[in-house]
């Protein structure tokens, strides 16, 4: 029986499959379909200091093997999460990662302070949401900005801090190093790629917000390349994501250097996707004669 357990910043995950932020809410809806305790962890819907209503619809558009979303960080605010959703989540046996997004450095710091005394296991800094004007691009793509906001949050946080990197960047390795130098204990990537879908008959973009964040299988090759580059630019652990649809896809990210993976869009195609990915990853290890999933991390042999 191959072992699936992984450890990131001292936090133990029963398996390396984590629900990606934004596709899984706070876990309750999917828990109606299966016990979410079978997952390694959950990164909750992006939280902001104050409640946010989000963007007008349509908020989703489809493209070949991908989707674009522009939800605009609709969420009940960090306090409501702590009071109403976290107690429920902590009854479940999985790592709880609070994904936080702000429009100023102070917002991030305040959220890290509010979350410090809670049972949240890790923080994930969403510095790259493409759907919110003030946040998104401002922090996520320039190394000096990444350094500034990461350093501030790491100073205030009690839990390990994961910085979620944007692929909409000139040099992913440079951004990864900026986060590491600022004190990030882990990285996750990739967030969505900014894109657009056009309705040629209406002569308008499909999304109300015009642009949206692209995800799904179509982005996987870009994600794999970036995860490989980021993982080889830093010493801190990397969590890989971008278009994972199967256990073999998860293995590909781990071979590129990811210690764990996040699954997002596939939850829409198949609501049972993540439990399946866990068992497929298990089967992949058996098939390849690997006894411990950690043994495939960074085991890629480049040509």
């Amino acid at each position, binding site marked *: 029986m191959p072992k699936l357990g992984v450890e990131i910043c001292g936090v133990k995950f029963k398996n390396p499959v984590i629900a990606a932020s*934004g*596709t*899984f*809410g706070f876990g*309750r*809806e*999917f828990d*109606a*379909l299966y016990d979410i305790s079978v997952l390694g962890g959950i990164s909750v*819907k992006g939280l902001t200091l104050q409640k946010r*209503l*989000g963007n*007008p*619809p*349509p*908020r*989703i*558009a*489809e493209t*070949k*093997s*991908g*989707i674009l*979303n522009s*939800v605009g960080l*609709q969420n009940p605010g960090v306090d409501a999460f702590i009071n109403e959703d976290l107690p429920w989540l902590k009854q479940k046996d999985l790592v709880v990662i609070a994904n936080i997004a702000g429009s100023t450095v102070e917002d991030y710091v305040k959220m890290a302070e509010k979350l410090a005394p809670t049972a949240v296991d890790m923080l994930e800094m969403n510095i790259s949401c493409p759907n919110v004007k003030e946040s998104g691009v401002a922090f996520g793509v320039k190394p000096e900005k990444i350094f500034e906001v990461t350093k501030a949050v790491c100073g205030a946080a009690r839990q390990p801090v994961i910085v979620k990197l944007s692929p909409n960047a000139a040099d992913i390795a440079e951004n990864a190093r900026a986060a590491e130098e600022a004190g990030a204990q882990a990285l996750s990537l990739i967030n969505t790629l900014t894109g657009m879908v056009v309705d040629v008959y209406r002569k308008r973009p*499909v999304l109300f917000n015009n642009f949206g964040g692209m995800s*799904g*299988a179509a982005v996987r090759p870009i994600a794999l390349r970036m995860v490989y580059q980021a993982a080889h630019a830093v010493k801190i652990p990397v969590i890989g994501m971008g278009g994972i649809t199967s256990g073999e896809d998860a293995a590909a990210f781990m071979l590129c250097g990811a210690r764990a993976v996040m699954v997002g*869009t*596939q*939850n*829409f*195609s*198949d*609501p*049972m996707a993540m439990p399946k990915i866990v068992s497929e990853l298990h089967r992949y290890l058996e098939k390849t004669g690997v006894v411990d999933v950690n043994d495939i991390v960074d085991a890629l042999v480049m040509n």
Partner: protein
Amino acid sequence: MKECLARVVDNSPLCDTMFQLTLRCDGLFEDGAEAGQFVNIAVNNPSLPLRRPISIYAIDRQKREIRLAVQAKGEGTLALLRSKKGDELSLLGALGNAFSWFVPNNAKRVFLVGGGVGVAPVRCAFDELSAKYDCSLFAGYRNVGLVYGLDGIEKERVFAVSDDGSFGEKALVTKPLGEQIEKNKPDVILACGPAPMLRAVSDLSEKHGIACAVSLEQRMGCGLGACLVCSCKVKAKTPEGYAYRRVCADGPIFDAREVIF
């Protein structure tokens, strides 16, 4: 609510642009299905990651079958159009709330109003609610080629019109609806169709002091209420004066008075 496999029992044309899929799906009936609810159906094309949310057109609990009325519009629904008897399709359902939730306990007369593709769920509601209530169906179509969903209903209970007069009177569905409200005021109006139609039905209901519920449509992601993609605007005591609710999980049917059209 479950993810389960459905077997295609029949796939046949319904009108010029629509077809009906009859699906045997035991899993769906474990938790039941009601008129107004929908299923999120995988289209068997891996390059299309999103399932298609489609409202239930007919329910046969004995045979454990549902029928879906589907408009062949884009790639996803065209993939469904190509499905053949015996094919298996993954369904997530039954999702959302039901029309029956909006019928007051003491109601006697129910008017059901559908426009185009939106006739499907209200026809389902007509079939399901007729045993308990005095139901009438109002349907509007663009033209005669797009007519469906009226078979097997007594003539005096159907009020159908078209935009071009090629079927019934040339009128909007609110015309016969308004006339019948004057004659036989219903206790509740249940509607599904394009936004301008829903707005007009909602206004008419309000004018006559009749309870009204509308079934809304929006592009969806998970269908479960987790992803917050299929939002609709409702009146709320927020600083903005509105809030977004999830069409998939809070709806698809809403009290018309709450909705900001």
